[in-house]
């Protein structure tokens, strides 16, 4: 009786190839979904005027960040795996409710709030919204330091959308959280916003066109929902 070839190696190889083929055929793993968190999050807007500098702050940034599956933000790595030409395939939507941004002035903060809301046409455009279009890692990355990216995206304020680019740092906070920090300088007139010039009785106060936006944004990784 002719014996069957009992060598297990080719069988394992075949099985492995089959599994690999099956794996490559199935849909890609879902991205890592990070959801905005209300703690350790803030946005500050700093500006100038003919009288004094001013600042407004908001405690809430809503939205999400989707990152490629399996991405590990271990800052001890020299670089991040899975980059193509240094670009991380990420998807980001961030939004800020205009009314949540409040003046830090000692006197009459509600006046500043109102001026800002009026200037930003809050009634018709209650939110500032940002969508990422490209996230490119800055090299070289120093081990132990946060990963710094050049972020490009579309920023919509007061009904006007402009392309913006600014650096952001992404810091892992434990296993499930990330903190994104960034600073950007904008011009109000680029968004068809007239710099407020309130008349405070003793003379005209004129705000400068340029403002600086600083933010820190904490997000929590949420596991995909089971179907």
């Amino acid at each position, binding site marked *: 009786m002719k014996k069957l070839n009992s060598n297990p190696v080719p069988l394992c190889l075949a099985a492995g190839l089959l599994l690999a083929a099956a794996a490559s055929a199935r849909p890609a793993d879902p991205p890592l979904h990070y959801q*905005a*968190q*209300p*703690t350790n999050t803030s946005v*500050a807007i700093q500006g100038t005027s003919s009288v004094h500098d001013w*600042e407004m702050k908001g*405690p*809430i940034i*809503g*939205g999400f960040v989707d990152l490629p599956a399996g991405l590990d933000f271990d800052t001890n790595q020299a670089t991040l795996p899975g980059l193509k030409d240094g670009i991380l395939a990420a998807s980001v939507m961030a*939004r800020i*409710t205009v*009314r*949540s941004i*409040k003046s*830090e*002035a*000692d*006197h*009459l*903060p*509600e*006046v500043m709030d*109102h*001026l800002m*809301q*009026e200037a930003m046409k809050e009634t018709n455009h209650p939110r500032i919204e940002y969508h990422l279009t490209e996230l490119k890692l800055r090299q070289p990355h120093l081990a132990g330091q946060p990963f710094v990216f050049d972020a490009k995206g579309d920023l919509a304020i007061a009904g006007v959308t402009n392309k913006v680019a600014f650096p952001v740092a992404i810091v892992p906070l434990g296993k499930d959280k990330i903190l994104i920090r960034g600073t950007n300088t904008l011009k109000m007139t680029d968004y068809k916003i007239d710099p407020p010039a*309130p*008349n*405070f*009785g*003793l003379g005209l106060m004129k705000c400068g066109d340029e403002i600086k936006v600083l933010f820190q944004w904490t997000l929590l990784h949420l596991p995909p929902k089971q179907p």
Partner: protein
Amino acid sequence: MKKKKDSSKVDRRDFLKNTSVATFMAMMGGVELAAPGCGRSQPVPVAGRKSGGEGAAPGAAATPQPAGAEAPLTQKPSFPPCRYGVIGAGPWGRKIISTLDLLKNDHEFANTEVVAVCDHYAGWLNRAGDLVPKAERFDDYHKLLAKPEVQAVVVATPTHQHRDIVLDALKAGKHVYCEAPLAHTIADAKDIARAAQSAFKLVFQAGLQERSHPHRHFLLSFLRTGVLNRNVLARAQWHKKESWARTASTPARADELNWRLHQATSPGLMGEAGIHRLDAVTWFLGGPHAGGRPSAVTGFSSLILWNDGRDVPDTVQGVFEFPEGPNSGLRFLFDATLCNSFDSEYEMYYGSDSAILMQPGNESRDSKAWMFKEVDATPLGWEVYARTERFGAETGISLVANASKQTALTDKPAAGNAPAVIEPLQYALQAFTANISEIGGAVKTYADDFGEADTPEFRANLADARKRALSQYPAAGWEEGLEATVLALKANEAALKKQKIELKNEFFDL
């Protein structure tokens, strides 16, 4: 980063710095130093409501306007619609309805509306309904609370009925303004406070109206500059000649109306009349966290004139003592009577450098205050320009916020700036409306992104929003309401027993 100042930390240096500006402004001539938001006619200017700003001198305003300037400032937008239901349509309830209706004349509060009124007594319900013809009328408060369009309720029923109504209203998701005192027993007051504390997404305001009055905040910051120097004595009174007795067509209705006359349902003169003075004085003396909570009260009471079968005294006195601290040795004397109306209602604060007399605002006059300086007190600088008035042998320096050099010289306010009487109730209801808008907005902003679940983060976010809203539209919350109610009820108990009661912290703690 700029930080807001704590109003309790105004120092003399800050005050004098602002004073010199005020003096300079006064000397420029033609500059009307009017306190924004305090006793001004409509429409309100954009400037803040807290008169004078922190540390500002009497006569100085945060945003002085040149005389004749025609409202050059931008106008604040109106708050979003706020639809009220008023529960309890007696004289005070109807006063509240009228005042809420009056708010509409102010651009900022133009969207305020009374959409429902409630009273189980048809006569009062009809009278209240006639004030706001478009409002729906209810004879059962449960039916009013079931209406989704009612966002906020004002509870103006007899004090002993507050508890159930407030708890049901908060449960129904309504913002609540509850008249003071919160309740006729400490247990009920604590139930209300607990419910208000739990309903963190809603606004609860206690009807301690003077907490919302800009002149009070102006005077508070002035007092905290140390003008009294060493606190020596505080005294307050509430005097009226009236019986409190109500007549009705049936004995049952008369019993219902005369709840104030019986100890089982009435917190007495200390609670019904005195609570506003007790609250104001203990607040001005530092409040519960800065030595302003009395450590004991000794009470006295008599039924002198209205001996008509009631068991509630018509004349009471209370002597409040304070713990070791900034008010060591100070005693606060309060008396209230239904037997004599002389000098009505006021507070006096006596210090080693000066004394301050404060009169609360009411229907016929605006809130006012005067300072009487000792001859050896440090000159403040601005008082040479301030208006003065004679009080018997004394000369009082007016602490009316628009008492500038100009007004002193002409002895009357500048044309176009005639002070209009805005009652404390109106300020309180404005604050309630504004805070509903602010807190409602903060709830929506947060919930849109993070959901409505009760989390520590949500509570912290709203606590910040509440703190901020109250800094612009100050008002008494459940904490102040409970503090004042407990104090008034214990003072009433001491008066009835004619004895001394130690005020333990546990009486006030939730």
